[in-house]
């Protein structure tokens, strides 16, 4: 029976890999996801055949059914209710649950084991450590994204790195005791595991609070990777291949995304993790010196006239688009412009928004053809042939200082070269700085017009004004 189960697990692993491969193109992605879900169903059914479950004579089935129904109800409610703008929060929660489940299973196995071999206990320690850090770190990320308890800005205090180091060592110390199977006084390996989980939980919180809102894409991708590694560790605990395979796939996926996000900000992972940009590396130019007397405010009517004579327009969405939920209005504006013969495309910076791909999902929700969503490298050469670039709620990702000022905190960060288009219209509430805390010379450039206001309202005004140009 065991070999039958393992064969089914192998089949499920293959389905997971094919499922992810499906995600390499939007056309095959839905089928890929269904393949993955089928693999999961197979794996769960196969596990029901395991002697450990069948052997209970059906006693375990009630509990299993109850747990699955409860979890499925919560999961389905979350999945169907969540707004597309809140997808970063959803992924943060899923990361948390993945890490938490791994730490719990590793603990459950340790509790039930008599004299486990070192190979198992080392994996148990890894699972507990990574799982707990992931669980609490992801909950902090969730909280920051929702703006509940913690500020969007990095939370920094003196001795932070030192405290993290001490906690890390303490957690490792507990881990050594678990592996040694030793006990001091009343504290056995299980007690040390509990202590390890407690310390790792605090560590998870402390490691995530210094990460600022705009760095969340990195944090979420990294926590995604951790949740995969925790699952792989649990696979080592159970000597279970499918957990190891799946966990390492997810771990690799998170790592790749983390690397892409860091590269798109020209920052090292360490720099992001310690919240260094908030401490202001490099010289910060003075906002008054940059903006004084040079910022031109515009009106919907003026922008409508610009569009009237335009052949090509590029829309550049940023986090502000998600905040004001303006994706549907932006789509309406683009459709209107296209009906008047303007070519419209969207320029998507890799770190626009709060998670990898955030802007793409929002615009897809608004029914924008995915072929119009252009990656940075693909669209940058075309800004010189663009009549109007419309920047909505973005700041640092269009700051030309990144290209021109080597002393800037964002120096070297690849940006969307909107300043090269004939006219730039920036929809923004005020001149307040973006996450990097620096003024943006784009707003004071000769070819830039500032359209102050809420994203959704401003776009609605633009639609009305364009319709009036008849």
């Amino acid at each position, binding site marked *: 029976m065991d070999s039958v189960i393992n064969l089914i697990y192998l089949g499920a692993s293959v389905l997971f890999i094919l499922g*992810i491969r499906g*995600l390499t193109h939007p056309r095959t992605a839905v089928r890929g996801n269904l393949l993955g879900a089928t693999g*999961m169903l197979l794996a769960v059914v196969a596990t029901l055949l395991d002697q450990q479950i069948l052997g209970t004579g059906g006693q375990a089935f009630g*509990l299993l059914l109850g747990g699955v129904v409860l979890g499925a109800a919560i999961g389905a409610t*979350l999945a*169907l209710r969540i707004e597309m703008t809140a997808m970063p929060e959803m992924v943060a929660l899923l990361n948390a*649950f993945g890490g938490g489940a791994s730490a719990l299973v590793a603990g459950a196995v340790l509790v039930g084991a008599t004299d486990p071999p070192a190979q198992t206990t080392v994996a148990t320690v890894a699972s507990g450590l990574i799982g707990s850090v992931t669980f609490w770190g992801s909950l902090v990320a969730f909280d920051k994204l929702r703006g509940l308890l913690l500020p969007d800005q990095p939370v920094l205090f003196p001795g932070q790195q030192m405290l993290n180091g001490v906690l890390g060592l303490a957690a490792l110390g507990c881990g050594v005791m678990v592996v040694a199977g030793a006990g001091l006084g009343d504290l056995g390996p299980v007690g040390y595991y509990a202590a390890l989980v407690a310390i790792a939980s605090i560590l998870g919180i402390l490691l995530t609070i210094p990460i600022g809102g705009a760095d969340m894409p990195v944090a979420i991708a990294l926590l995604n990777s951790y*949740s995969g590694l925790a699952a792989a560790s649990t696979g080592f605990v159970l000597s279970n291949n499918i957990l190891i395979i799946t966990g390492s*796939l997810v771990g*690799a996926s998170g790592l790749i995304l983390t690397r892409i996000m860091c590269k798109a900000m020209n920052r090292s992972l360490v720099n992001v993790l310690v919240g260094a940009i908030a401490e202001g590396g490099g010289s910060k130019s003075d906002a008054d010196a940059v903006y004084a007397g040079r910022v031109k405010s515009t009106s919907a009517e003026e922008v409508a006239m610009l569009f009237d004579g335009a052949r090509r327009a590029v829309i550049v969405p940023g986090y502000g688009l998600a905040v004001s939920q303006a994706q549907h209005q932006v789509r309406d504006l683009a459709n209107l412009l296209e009906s008047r013969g303007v070519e419209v495309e969207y320029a998507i910076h890799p770190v626009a928004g709060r998670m990898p791909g955030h802007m793409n999902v929002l615009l897809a929700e608004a029914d924008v053809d995915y072929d119009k969503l252009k990656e940075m490298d693909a669209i940058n050469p075309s800004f010189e042939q663009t009549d109007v670039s419309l920047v909505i709620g973005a700041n640092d990702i269009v700051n030309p200082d990144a290209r021109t000022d080597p002393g800037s905190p964002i120096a070297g960060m690849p940006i969307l070269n909107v300043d090269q288009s004939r006219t730039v219209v920036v929809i923004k509430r005020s001149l307040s700085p973006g996450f990097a805390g620096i003024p943006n010379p784009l707003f004071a450039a000769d070819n830039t017009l500032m359209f102050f206001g809420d994203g959704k309202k401003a776009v609605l005004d633009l639609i009305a004004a364009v319709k009036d140009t008849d």
Partner: protein
Amino acid sequence: MDALIPLLTIFMLAVFVGFEIITKVPPLLHTPLMSGSNAISGITIIGAMLSVASSNQTTTILGFLALVIATVNVVGGFLVTHRMLGMFRKKD
């Protein structure tokens, strides 16, 4: 140690497979990739099921908690990914 080598082998090979296919996922689909990978990392559900069936009561309780949240991951992850992917359309 003998038991560890095959597991490590599988781990390393799976990491390489992961790197190979995931680098081919376009940025367009990075959000569904994250929710979808969370769904499959809900595979911990298997470990949770085995723990629930244990004769040790503490193991059963911990396993049950893990079962609930792993199921949230599996069901929530696949469903939300499906919902998102359905929005990526090409108009002709």
